[in-house]
């Protein structure tokens, strides 16, 4: 029994005026609202301590908001989790890579919610694991212990777990940390294919430069939603500076320093110490230029 597909006419995630407070009195999120549609990839961007991980925890029901409501595919968070709608791909640093589990064991963990009381795998569970491993190209390595993998392979194992789970909403925490550029392209291709099947993928990342490559939507976050919308109109220099304040490295090269002609366009480089975002001005509006990457 796999979780239901997302309805195309209903928001996949609807966050309505939530505030989240911790037991020690700190307010992590204040009156945040946004809605995300199925079949899209959305980047969640903000400085460290901006409440991004708290937002993830709220979406997964670890923390109940003090005010406001979260609705997932028209249901409460608890009901959505129970039906396996939401998958979480952890940050590499949060995983104990010495843990005695093989690649196929981790992918099988995606099926636990579909199994009976004793979690004994049936034919459908094994088929789902086989298909997920094949899809991410990890079938040949299925008997490796997880610590014996490269950074990109590790990421793919956890994406396979989300696929085996059949989730329609996938939360990814910093998917490109410790991953080389070629693998990054492969992961992005996989995410795009998953989006095209109707899934919603929410990615928390510092890697500003890769966002225009693969994210349709962006949420700029700093304790509340600073800006949210399509990447093209939302992911702008002005919004980024509002969301990050002085934390970003900011390099600007004016047209007069670039070339000796009347072309006034300038190059702007914004970076949070990961792949930089490069903006190259056009006649009347800023255009986002993603740096070239080697093809897989």
């Amino acid at each position, binding site marked *: 029994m796999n979780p239901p597909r997302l309805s195309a006419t209903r928001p996949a995630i609807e966050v309505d005026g939530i505030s989240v407070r911790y037991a020690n009195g700190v307010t992590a999120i204040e009156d945040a609202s946004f809605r995300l549609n199925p079949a899209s990839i959305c980047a969640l961007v903000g400085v460290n301590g901006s409440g991004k991980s708290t937002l993830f925890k709220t979406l997964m029901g670890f923390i109940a908001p003090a005010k406001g409501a979260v609705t997932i595919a028209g249901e409460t968070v608890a009901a959505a*989790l129970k039906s396996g709608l939401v998958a979480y791909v952890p940050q590499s640093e949060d995983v104990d890579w*010495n843990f005695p589990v093989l690649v196929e064991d981790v992918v099988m963990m995606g099926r*636990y919610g579909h199994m009976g*009381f004793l*979690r004994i795998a049936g034919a459908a569970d094994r088929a789902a694991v086989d298909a997920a491993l094949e899809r991410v190209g990890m079938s040949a390595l299925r008997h490796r212990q997880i610590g014996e993998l490269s950074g990109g392979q590790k990421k793919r194992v956890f994406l396979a777990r989300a696929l085996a789970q059949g989730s329609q909403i996938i939360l990814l925490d910093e998917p490109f940390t410790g991953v080389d550029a070629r693998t990054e392209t492969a992961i992005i291709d996989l995410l795009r294919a998953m989006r095209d099947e109707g899934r919603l993928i929410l990615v928390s990342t510092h890697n500003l430069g890769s966002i225009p490559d693969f994210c349709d939507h962006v949420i700029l976050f700093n304790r509340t939603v600073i800006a949210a919308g399509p990447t093209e109109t939302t992911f702008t220099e002005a919004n980024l500076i509002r969301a990050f304040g002085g934390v970003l490295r900011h390099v600007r090269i004016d047209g007069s320093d670039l070339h000796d002609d009347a072309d006034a366009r300038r190059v702007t480089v914004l970076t949070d110490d990961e792949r930089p975002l490069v903006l190259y001005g056009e006649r009347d509006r800023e255009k986002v230029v993603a740096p070239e990457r080697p093809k897989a």
Partner: protein
Amino acid sequence: MSAFISFFTLPLSHDFMQRGLVVALLVGTICAMLSCYLVLKGWSLMGDAVSHAVLPGIVLAFMTGLPLAVGAFAAGLGCALATGYLQAHSRVREDAVMGIVFSGLFALGLVLFVKVETDQHLNHILFGNMLGVQLGDVAETALIALPAMAFLLARRRDLMLYCFDPAHARAIGLRVGFLHYGLLVLLALTIVASLKAVGIILVIAMLIAPGAIGLIVTRRFGPMMIVAVLAATGSCLLGTLLSFHLDAATGPMIVVVQSLLFALLVVIRQVRLALAAG
């Protein structure tokens, strides 16, 4: 050959040796199963803490006429819960909080023990008295250990997932709180069941070494648990028999055998790695 056979048969011709061995195997098995989770969850110090904290519970139970096991269980679990509460409500790290709570409770236990006249020997509480166990003690140990084993076997995959990736466990709708506190309750119960045989100090070794042995020998959770149980029961058998022939303390002998086994396996692994590297 007959000397080899009598190494086993001579000790086991005594009733007290038979009872001691049964208790040792029960305690060894449940401790080994639990130790796999403790080692993987990074909770080795938790076993240390809960077992020390049991002491005031025993003395208070004696003073109020309750069964000692009930007092011990309540104090052990109380220590684990107090640690969690204090850690959530202060800026001090978990290991420091745990150190304060369990040493405080242990000290309180010692103060009470010296002040109150009991029929217990401090030595037996600390280090166990395996060869002194009565049939009733065997029954009590089995009554706790067997249901605990059944629970661990039935929920082994959920508990393993909880140790590996609690966020995913929660995201697929598992009751993470139940697993967390289930593991703590099981830990307190196991320590209570082990009291008579190995005491509150030596049980710490039984709760760490088998899981550590399983972890260095295998690369998958199921085999890890099997190796842990085999290593623990083997050490219990050998330790008990050796203690008879050498006229040595039984509980400590088991722990010595188990620790030597761990050291030996680490050395073998290092040598094999060095040989493989050429």
